[in-house]
């Protein structure tokens, strides 16, 4: 009797163990890895969905900007005029004489001093008299300064208006670094109030670009986005 009970108990325990083993093996080797991979894919899907939502918002913003393309090309044109990719001196000289005429000032001389690469620290270094004196090493993103000396004649009031126009109307960004004011050639008295002669040291800037970049910029300026 006891032997029979032992046999039955043995079979029951063995059966339970085999069932547990089957379940454990199935879970560890097949079910859990598959569910884990599915969970990873779910996380990946959520991340992709968030990325796509951001892309949709970005595209909407870009579409709105594209609708204002003339404003953007105008901004680009102004930015390139402020710091052109070439010397820009012919256009700058024409601009100076035009602004001189507009303010009643006679621009009699424009002399180019030198072209100097700009180092970022040179602009903020203590006590530096001019960028031409700094030992420039690596230019900042290909930025160069061009020193000019401009001779102009006119009344003090007109000369002040001329300087203001050069500085603020641009479009070339111009830094005034020094100025000598003396009575003009037509002055009847030794005073700068009447006819004044201005010798102004100016600095303008250029950011040279490669031919490929220039072609691309010209396309963008013309509104050709290549779409």
């Amino acid at each position, binding site marked *: 009797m006891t032997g029979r009970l032992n046999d039955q108990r043995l079979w029951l325990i063995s059966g339970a163990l085999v069932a547990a083993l089957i379940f454990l093996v199935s879970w560890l080797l097949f079910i859990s890895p598959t569910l884990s991979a599915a969970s990873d894919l779910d996380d990946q899907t959520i991340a*992709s969905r968030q990325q796509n939502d951001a892309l949709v918002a970005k595209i909407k913003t870009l579409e709105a*900007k594209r609708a204002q393309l003339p404003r953007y090309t105008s901004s*680009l044109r102004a930015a390139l005029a402020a*710091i052109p990719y070439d010397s820009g001196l012919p256009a700058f000289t024409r601009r100076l004489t035009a602004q001189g005429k507009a303010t009643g000032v006679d621009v009699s001389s424009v002399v180019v001093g030198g072209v100097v690469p700009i180092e970022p620290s040179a602009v903020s270094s203590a006590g530096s008299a001019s960028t031409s004196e700094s030992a420039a090493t690596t230019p900042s993103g290909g930025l160069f300064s061009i020193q000019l000396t401009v001779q102009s004649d006119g009344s003090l009031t007109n000369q002040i208006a001329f300087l203001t126009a050069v500085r603020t109307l641009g479009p070339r*960004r111009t830094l005034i670094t020094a*100025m*000598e004011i003396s*009575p003009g050639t037509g002055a009847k008295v030794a005073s700068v109030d009447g006819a004044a002669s201005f010798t102004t040291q100016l600095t303008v800037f250029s950011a040279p670009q490669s031919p490929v970049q220039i072609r691309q910029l010209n396309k963008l300026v013309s509104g050709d986005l290549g779409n």
Partner: protein
Amino acid sequence: MTIELARTEGYSPPTSRPGWDIVADMTPPELVTRRRLDILRRRIAIALVLVVLLCAAAFGYAMFRHMSADDDAAAEATRTTSLTRSASRFAGITQIESTVDGLDSKVAMVMQTDVDVARVIAAIRKALPNSMTMQSISVTLDQGISTEASTGVSAGLDASGRPTIGTVTISGSGRGLDDLPAFVDDLMTVRGFVNVLPTSNEVSDGNAQFNVTFTLTDLLRTHRFDVGKGAR
């Protein structure tokens, strides 16, 4: 072996099926045990098959979840590709923006020492008394920012503590010696003018010739082209 069975009293055998009421289980116990064990083994086998089927069903569900998640991920990846392609149509706008921002940063950097020199000249002219004239004005601006207070003879007179950025020298004439003090007083009230010194003031042939120098501080920097100011 002979077995005698005593008939119980009052017992009367059924007349329809004589001999059927006499039952004796002659099965050996070993056979009974073996049969019970067989039944148990059969039941355990069925249970094990059920466990296997359950595991298979669970695995099937896991595979279904995986396929479904894979499809969703693939759909989102396709959508990403499509949206990225759409966004690339606007690369030109992005390039315009980045070019403009880059140039604006360069402008802000090179123009951080910008001074409204015309305004300086206008302030000097406004401070000049009517009895005086200027024969020359010289303005020199530093392109860096001095971190020290002004140096030179007048260093001790500048209590503003502001960095200096340039110097102005004026020469002119007036009717008398008293003209220059008024000019100097007015110049000292101009924001950004420090160390205003009348370096010479002498009467000659009825006219007073003077020289004045002063220093300009960083208060005169316009910061007009700083990033965010929008004045390209």
